[in-house]
């Protein structure tokens, strides 16, 4: 089983995002692995552990710092790592999906995993777009994957615990919402070991595509309302909340 | 008739050392040995590494014997036994039979170094099945195998991978009549356990014990390395019975620190048999009319209690395991003292 995981290196939203012109100031933000991609890598490794094969992780090097992410993926059980040397922090999902699809074309993938979404999917997610480019079926919102022979059974989630089970003949692209088990921890010792021994294959970006969106403005959202903030110590806060609830007959 | 001669009975470690010391002090020595060769139990039982620096004990005995046989002050009589004794300190007359011929010896002092014999595990209160199961052996059986680097299960000739030592077999047991501690078994079991781990590195070696009693050489050079370096495993709690399970042995007992019963299969069980007075010791004691303790060992200590080589009869001294369990170090140390005391007692009488 040839499993490919397409990942996104995205601006961290742990802190405020600085703006430059009509977009995020990519020079002054930290980049992190999309959190859904952590689930996606885990799901891919789980499938490999169940049926055998290799997991290849591929991503676009947005700011020249993708190696760390790829080492982490290798430490978690991926077998190969490929980076597309884009070095374009502003590359949108359409462009990344195109580059990724071109890179994946030569890998004879049986399954391609991608995180179901990313916080910078302003022009859509890479998973369905890669599927479109590779002419493979796509299912997103997936929370479990089982492979038997040349088909996969996936559970897709709708809302409120409602979902559906699909059977798909491979190859396919899966948009992972959550892995069957929570992502495993990769000890730094292992990551560092990997960093010293692993080779990361470099692929030049190939194929042009763009979102076709012109950015007119990028700014923190205009706040229409704001909560009335309760100040003081935790005890004060608790006291005021309890008073509030009592006054409204809710406690 | 006073005599300047020291008669030493027994050619084991204590007898050999007594002979050497007495000779070096200028005494005239007659050493009588029951067997046709010197070296005592270490030689007879082919004891392997039992001395400091892990030297082969029977080899060390050969060195001691050579010293004695090459000393012109020492006369050795082989195949010799004491038949009777009369007289008193300074002028004993000892009738012996040596090589089938009766002989009379005048001696100013006597040192008894008639040693011990191993406990016979057939008498154990526990059901260890020494005589029924070939793979239940004793320390002495194992010692021979270790010396030959050929440790195998007697039942099938295969290399044992799981070996248990059971401590205090025949010692510290009122029902057997041996309430005493045999002193050396903990150390010897530990020593053999080390050798087992050296000769069979993938073996599991366990020692089941009431309490480990080791000191000096045994503690520092045997017990700690056994555990720390050779990973010998000690379990507190004696095995009560050894049963058969297929072609294995099943040991049953209680693991006391875990407060849990144990039923574990083993390839081989080694009984750490203790010491009893040898037949020679009992016979000589009776013949000489000297006091024995309740276990048959020659009572030593003297009136003041701090005279470890004195017997109840003046001019007759004891050394080594004849007076109670002792290791080689102890036996040899006692022998040196006995020699000094014997030579001195003669000089007093002669003076």
């Amino acid at each position: 089983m040839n499993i490919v995981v397409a990942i996104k290196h995205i601006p961290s939203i742990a802190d405020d995002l600085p703006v430059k012109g009509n977009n995020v100031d990519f020079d002054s933000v930290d980049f992190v692995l999309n959190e859904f991609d952590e689930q996606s890598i885990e799901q891919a490794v789980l499938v490999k552990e169940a049926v055998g094969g290799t997991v290849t992780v591929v991503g676009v090097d947005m700011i020249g710092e993708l190696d760390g992410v790829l080492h982490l993926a290798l430490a978690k059980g991926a077998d190969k790592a490929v980076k597309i040397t884009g070095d374009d922090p502003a590359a949108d999902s359409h462009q990344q999906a195109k580059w990724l699809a071109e890179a994946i074309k030569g890998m004879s993938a049986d399954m391609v995993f991608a995180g179901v979404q990313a916080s910078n999917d302003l022009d859509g997610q890479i998973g369905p777009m890669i599927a479109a480019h590779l002419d493979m079926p796509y299912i997103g919102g997936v929370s479990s994957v089982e492979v038997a022979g040349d088909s996969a059974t996936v559970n897709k989630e709708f809302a409120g615990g409602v979902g559906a089970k699909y059977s798909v003949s491979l190859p396919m692209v899966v948009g992972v919402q959550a892995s069957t088990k929570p992502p495993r921890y990769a000890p730094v010792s292992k990551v560092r070991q990997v960093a010293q021994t692993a080779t990361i294959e470099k692929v030049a970006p190939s194929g042009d595509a763009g979102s076709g969106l012109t950015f007119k403005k990028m700014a923190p959202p205009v706040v229409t309302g704001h909560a009335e903030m309760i100040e003081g110590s935790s005890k004060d806060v608790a006291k005021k909340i309890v008073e509030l609830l009592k006054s409204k007959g809710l406690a | 008739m006073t005599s300047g001669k020291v008669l030493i009975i027994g050619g084991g470690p204590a007898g050999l050392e007594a002979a050497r010391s007495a000779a070096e002090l200028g005494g005239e020595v007659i050493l009588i040995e029951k067997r046709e060769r010197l070296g005592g139990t270490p030689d007879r039982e082919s004891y392997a590494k039992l001395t400091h620096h892990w030297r082969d004990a029977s080899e060390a005995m050969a060195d001691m014997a050579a010293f004695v046989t090459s000393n012109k002050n020492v006369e050795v009589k082989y195949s010799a036994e004491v038949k009777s004794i009369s007289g008193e300190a300074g002028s004993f007359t000892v009738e012996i039979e040596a090589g089938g011929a009766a002989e009379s010896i005048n001696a100013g002092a006597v040192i008894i170094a008639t040693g011990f014999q191993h406990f016979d595990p057939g008498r154990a209160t526990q059901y260890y099945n020494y005589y029924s199961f070939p793979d239940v052996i004793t320390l002495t059986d194992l010692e021979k195998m270790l010396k030959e680097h050929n440790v195998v299960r007697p039942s099938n000739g295969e290399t044992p991978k799981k070996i248990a030592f059971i401590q205090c077999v025949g010692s510290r047991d009122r029902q057997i009549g041996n309430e005493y501690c045999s002193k050396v078994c903990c150390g010897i079991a530990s020593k053999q356990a080390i050798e087992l781990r050296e000769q069979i590195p993938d073996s599991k070696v366990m020692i089941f014990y009431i309490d480990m009693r080791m000191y000096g050489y045994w503690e520092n050079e045997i017990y700690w390395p056994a555990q720390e370096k050779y990973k010998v495993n000690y379990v507190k709690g004696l095995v009560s019975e050894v049963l058969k399970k297929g072609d294995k042995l099943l040991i049953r007992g209680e693991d006391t620190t875990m407060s849990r019963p144990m039923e574990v299969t083993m390839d081989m069980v080694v009984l750490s048999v203790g010491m009893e007075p040898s037949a020679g010791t009992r016979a000589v004691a009776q013949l000489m009319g000297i006091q024995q303790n309740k276990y048959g060992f020659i009572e030593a200590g003297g009136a003041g209690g701090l005279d470890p080589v004195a017997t109840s009869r003046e001019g007759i001294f004891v050394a080594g395991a004849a007076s109670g369990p002792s290791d080689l170090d102890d036996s040899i140390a006692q022998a040196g003292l006995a020699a000094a005391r014997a030579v001195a007692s003669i000089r007093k009488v002669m003076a």
Partner: protein
Amino acid sequence: MAGPIKAKFVEKEHAVVDGVDISGHWNRMFEQRVITEYTPELIEKIADLPNAESFANCYQCAKCVSVCPVDIVGNYGPRKLYRYAQTGMDLTEAPELWLCTTCKNCLRVCPKEVDMIKIMPAAREEAILQGKFVPAELQQAFENTAKSGNPLGQPQRKRDAWIKDAGVEIPIIKDLARPVDVLWYVGSYPSYHPRGIDAASAAARIFSALGIDFAILGKEEKDDADSQRLAGEKGLFEMMAESNIATFNNYEWKEMVVTGPHELNAFKNVYPKYGFDRPVIHYTTFLARHLDQLKELLKHEVNVKVTYHDPCYLGRHNGEYEAPRKLLEAIPGVELVEMQRNRENGYCCGGGGGGMWMDSFTAKHTTMRLSEKRAMEAASTGADVLAVACPFEVSRFADAVKSTGNEHVDVLDILELLDKSMRGE
């Protein structure tokens, strides 16, 4: 409570056999009582790990068990670990692996120098590298440290956010752009945790009042990661150590003062192996050196009875027992009373060795939190204040005095008490 021990049953929360889910009581079994196998290889497995050699040395004297803080609230102890291994427990897969707080009280009494401070990290590292069970809370702390530079998972950029409310100017060494006498390594909890910030702010005011020429690293400071190392993540520790050492060496300073004993241990005892060898002292030692000058500042009486908890990593691990006491005795009005277990035999708060991030896990395997046991000991002295000198402890004991019904005992860092006396609040 004496009496026969009833057979215990075991029950797995999740179990599937041949595709049939037999979770919970469906798989209930009585615990096997008979030992049917001895497993010296499981002792050797641990003793063969680098630095864990002494695990094989235990001769079951059991001195460790009665001084082990975990045994006092549960059933644990280094001696038992050896025996459990001998009777079939793979330490790398056992919950016992995560209970040790590396408090060092066992090593203090061990005639065989069985060194759990080295054994535990090695065995834990093995478990982590082999993908064995690791408490989720601990993994979270590891991930937070790896991603955010601190176990709390707070943004690096906010590490110096606390300084603006400290009431005094706190220079950042990078902005200062000149050598300083003292580089103050604040630490993660003092930088982010609300109660830690209280102590950090107090420290800043004290240093300032003493006229110390000091600066902090600000946003460049990262967690020391010593507890993560002891919890088994050596790689993470090394990564953080390399980063910290590079930062420390970027600046000119004469001496480093740390707020926390764990940091002291890291920088003084472990970082030297990674090439960092500069003077580091704990704040109590540092302030005790300025005692005369400090006494002049302690103008206001603080009329409380104080008992002092020795942090394991300040006391047993680094030998500082007296400086904290000298500081407390210097505060006018303070009456210092000792708990029974103090100094070399001080009882552990449960936060060391990664215990800080395994409270829920530990709670499942003990009858009471270590911090609760200690809080009760503190309360039994009749003290009004439980004084501490480790940033892990304020929050731990603040919870513990509440949960044991001893809210009347205030938990304060020595820094906070000094600050009170200095400012009269």
